[in-house]
């Protein structure tokens, strides 16, 4: 929704693809349906609610087709090395509260795949309480206003990254 909102502004002339994955088929079905209750939408602004949602059963809201059509939903096991190798040229990865279920060696493998899959510069966002400490030292931790992210820097670039 943010990307659509910016498609005539910051991202004018850009095309984008969003790929959403999970291990669990039921979760993927839920994600495809795109129906959210009031709690899940507590941080969603009125503008977005009006523009990108339609009313669903009860007081729930469903994401409009035009938004859902921009996303490819698929089943993926992050430990499946063969499939992970296909991830290439990605700008942004959001992987929140997933790696907490992995042991250190598996974490390192998944994060290595993420690193190879990202373009440089590319950003990797973890969950609120997660850290790559002792998992990977290939990324640079970057502070943005109110959040942190891991940056795959362009080789040889130093100093402060551009926001």
């Amino acid at each position, binding site marked *: 929704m943010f990307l659509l909102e910016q498609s005539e502004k910051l991202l004018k002339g850009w095309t984008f693809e969003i790929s959403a994955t999970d291990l669990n088929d039921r979760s993927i079905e839920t994600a495809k349906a795109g129906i959210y209750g009031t709690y899940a939408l507590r941080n969603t602004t009125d503008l977005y609610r009006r523009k990108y949602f339609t009313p669903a059963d009860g007081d729930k809201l469903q994401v409009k087709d035009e938004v859902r059509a921009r996303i490819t939903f698929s089943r993926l096991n992050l430990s499946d090395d063969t499939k992970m190798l296909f991830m290439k040229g990605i700008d942004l990865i959001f992987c929140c509260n997933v790696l907490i279920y992995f042991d250190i060696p598996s974490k390192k493998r998944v994060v290595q795949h993420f690193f190879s899959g990202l373009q440089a510069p590319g950003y990797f966002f973890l969950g609120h309480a997660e850290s790559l400490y002792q998992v990977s030292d290939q990324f*640079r931790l*970057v*502070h*943005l*206003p109110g959040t942190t992210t891991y*940056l795959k820097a362009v080789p040889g670039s130093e100093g*402060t*990254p551009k926001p």
Partner: protein
Amino acid sequence: MTTTTPANSELRRRVEKLRSLPSSPAVLQPLLDLLRRPPDEIELSQVVQLVSYEKTIAAQLLRIANSPLYARARPAESIQSAIFTLGIQRIEDILLSNCFGKLVPQDKWVVDPAVFWRHSFGCALVCREFAERIDYYDPDKAYLAGLLHDLGIIVNSLAYNDEYRTVLAEAVQNGRPLDEQEKLTLGFTHCESGVILAKTWQLPDTVCEVIEWHHDMEHAPANNPLIALVHLGDLLCRLRGLGYGYDEWRAIDLAADPAWHELARHCPKLASIDLARFTLDLDAYVVRITKLVDTIFSPALALTG
């Protein structure tokens, strides 16, 4: 080093004039002396004596000690019990903000005083925590330096009130760091003005250096790791919502900052710190500091005394 430009000598002249302002509260000097010492060397009687300088402070401390923030089973009725509840550090914080409240008339504050104190106390706490984690030898000095590093913002508000309002408005509008906007609009930063007052107040040399150089690591004197420490603590605060009340639009890689290398030279433990985790832990401070400052500045409290 500081060069003497026309802007600079004008600055000096205006700050010199500030010295003759009648408002330096009597409690300030003994309080600063107290702040310089580690908490375990401070005697309760000295704190009680400090508190008794001002009748309004005693009432304010009781109100804060009995506020929901401290959740006491029975209300604190004496100054001593209020001091036990709040702890010496909090008392010092409250006294200091009270002092500055007297130093700066209500209509002269450019940055909202609550915002200023959230940043100053936040930075003080972050610097002390940071110091402890990387085995910097004097965490209490780090606290004091963090607390006073932005003294120049007070100086600018007093000596250049109108101009400084423009500075803040433009910084907010452009999401630009305050020191950069000061340089653009005034020709000097709060570092240059702050150190003049800091020296007048005879703050410790290491703290004066922090005030003077925390935005200019490139020219900072070597062998004072406190400057690098406060520089990084200040950045962390500003990026986690304890800044000057607006978002600065920038991305920062602390580990690539020259201050990081300077600090690592003195505190090798820095290399092994989990920075993402540390940043997250700091968010807990944001909540605590915000509550404390809101308690100090809540209108109900201001009415007492």
